């Protein structure tokens, strides 16, 4: 942002850095502000080069640049500005996206946090214009205590004890896991963790974790974790590279939604065809069933037979 506004905002972040040290390294300062050094040099030169200043007039800011060193006197700008309404609105939205339906304990903390933030904003005559204009949620809420426990386990590299209800499991199992990564994709949160029970890397759907308790055991982090192996088409998926595949056709009635969601091209007849990893046959059957007669299995044929058998069983159970 090389507009006056962009430069102003950068300078208002840079100048308070000179409150304790008048002389600083340009490259270090630029790195801390996450801008290239040349951008920062340009900004500071804007203040340093005062061709319009009459002799004897005081400068609000003086800047001397020598090599990688910059010396600044900016007595009026030794503290950052208060938060702007836009900044507050961004943080508020972030808090909403972290969790809307917080537990009572968290609600108190969030309310307290919002009250503190409100003390840090600059009040302007048009303040009310921002209120309530942005909101959001990533997925229907689960248990906030579980999310908090996962967050702490990730932050502190601690082992988490969870009770997990697998897709086809009626009782669930308790297991100790080492959480490495939390990913949101297509409406659900997935926790990638080393499972000490299964002695391997697993993907846990967070909405199927029924309890989560932080243990006092630490772990060494995700050493040797193969990042690409955790994903397939941008979706958390373990072992995507080695799994067999299935080919599905979505009919023209629903294909445009699928194409939009998954970034697929439409066929000439308006349908969409997708090749997906087939690691879990039960998952594949349920995936196809949710689209009713608008989704067909093109390959493999044995999965199609399994689908027919499942549907025959369902029809028999109803009659």
């Amino acid at each position, binding site marked *: 942002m090389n507009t006056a*506004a962009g430069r102003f*905002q950068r300078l208002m*972040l840079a100048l308070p850095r000179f409150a304790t040290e008048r002389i600083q390294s340009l490259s270090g300062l630029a790195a801390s502000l*996450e801008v290239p050094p040349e951008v920062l040099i340009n900004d500071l030169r804007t*203040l340093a080069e005062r061709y319009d*200043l009459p002799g004897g007039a005081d400068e*609000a800011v003086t800047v001397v640049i020598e090599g990688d060193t910059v010396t600044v006197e900016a007595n009026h*700008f*030794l*503290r*950052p*500005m208060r938060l702007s*309404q*836009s*900044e*507050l609105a961004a943080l508020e*939205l*972030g*808090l909403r*996206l972290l969790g*809307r339906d917080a537990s009572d304990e968290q609600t108190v*903390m969030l309310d307290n*946090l919002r009250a*503190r933030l409100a*003390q840090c904003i*600059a*009040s302007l*005559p048009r303040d009310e214009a921002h209120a309530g*204009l*942005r*909101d*959001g*949620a*990533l997925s*229907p809420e689960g248990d906030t205590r579980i999310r908090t426990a996962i967050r702490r386990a*990730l932050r502190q590299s601690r082992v988490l004890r969870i009770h997990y209800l*697998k897709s086809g499991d*009626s009782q*669930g199992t308790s297991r100790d896991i080492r959480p490495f*990564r*939390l990913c949101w*994709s297509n409406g659900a949160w997935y926790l990638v963790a080393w499972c000490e029970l299964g002695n391997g890397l697993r993907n846990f759907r967070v909405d199927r974790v029924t309890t989560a308790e932080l243990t006092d055991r630490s772990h060494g982090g995700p050493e040797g974790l193969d990042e690409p192996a955790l994903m397939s088409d*941008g979706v958390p998926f373990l072992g995507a590279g080695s799994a067999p595949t299935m080919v599905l056709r979505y009919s023209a009635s629903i294909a445009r939604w699928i194409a*939009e969601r998954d*970034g697929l091209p439409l066929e000439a007849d308006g349908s969409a065809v997708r090749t997906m990893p087939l690691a879990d046959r*039960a998952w594949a059957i349920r995936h196809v*069933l*949710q*689209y*009713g*007669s608008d989704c*067909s*299995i093109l390959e493999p044929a044995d999965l199609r037979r399994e689908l*027919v058998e*499942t*549907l*025959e*069983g*369902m029809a028999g159970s*109803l009659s």
Partner: protein
Amino acid sequence: MPVRPKLQRWIDLMAALLDRRYGLTLAQLRHEVVGYQDGRAESVRRTFERDKDELRRLGVPIEVEGVPGDPEPRYRLTSDRFYLPYLVVAGERGLVRPRRIDRNGYRALAECEFDDEAIELLSDAARRVSQVGDPMLATHAWSAMKKLAADISPELLAPTAAVHVLPTAAAAASEHLEALSGALLRRKQVSFTYYGIERDETERRTVLPYGLAFTSGHWYLHALDPARGEVRAFRVSRMRELAVNAKAPGTQDYEIPATFSLSDRSKPKLPWKLGEDPPVAVEVRINRANGHTAAVARAGQRVAGTNRVICQVRRREPFLRWLLGLAGDVEPVAPPDIVREYRALIQRTLTTARTVT
């Protein structure tokens, strides 16, 4: 006017105002600020008014004292309203206070206390908002955290690592989000060409924006559509040729009714709970308890002492497909017409599955 003198003028103006506790008139400012010394009085006044308005938009709380229209109002920028308070962090080891600046204007600044857990949450919130595909929001969150970093340690401000929101395939255009944000703030009408995916048609729409929500991975504009007389949600990624009403830029085109709640509208809902159709109570039986069927229990109300759940269904077809996707672990048992429709859906799906070659 070139960028460089403007920036210098802004800095000079702020410094002059911060120096004078009781404010300055424009006539006095003309002596203090080099950029206001030359030129005709009216031209200088216009420049000053523009500077003041732009600085206010950037969060500089310049106050005007005096009666509106007063030929000599005073302009004030007080240190307590301009500078960030000193941030104190309460943790297990007590309070951590930043070093105070021993100079006029800084000594009397207030303190604001946060606990360390709240700071962690805030850093995660800033990271989360930077992952939702809106560069402007990301910039605002980033600059907020940089301000807080003046007093709070980088370790505490570091967000929880390894938390990712994966982008969806159809992302909203950042220039559309920026234009809609501006329209919302200024309450200006917007027009766009919209792809209605349900009917597979595009249509020009003119609406009054009420809010922007990031729901289940997509940005939606919630806006009053006067042609239809109701508030509707428009997925931003399906908009093209977006235009904000440029007429009467200084006035608002509409007001957002006090009864409107973006919070209610932005909650993710299951597809069968969407819409305005009156809900039908559907009773389902859970044949097998497992990870999938737990979602059914959450989506409805369990009948006490049974394996049955009552779901309030507004849209039948999505509901029946949702049940079908549970592969027989859950079945509808009442009312009879829903059971018949479910049975017919199974038959249609079976026919399709048998005929694929």
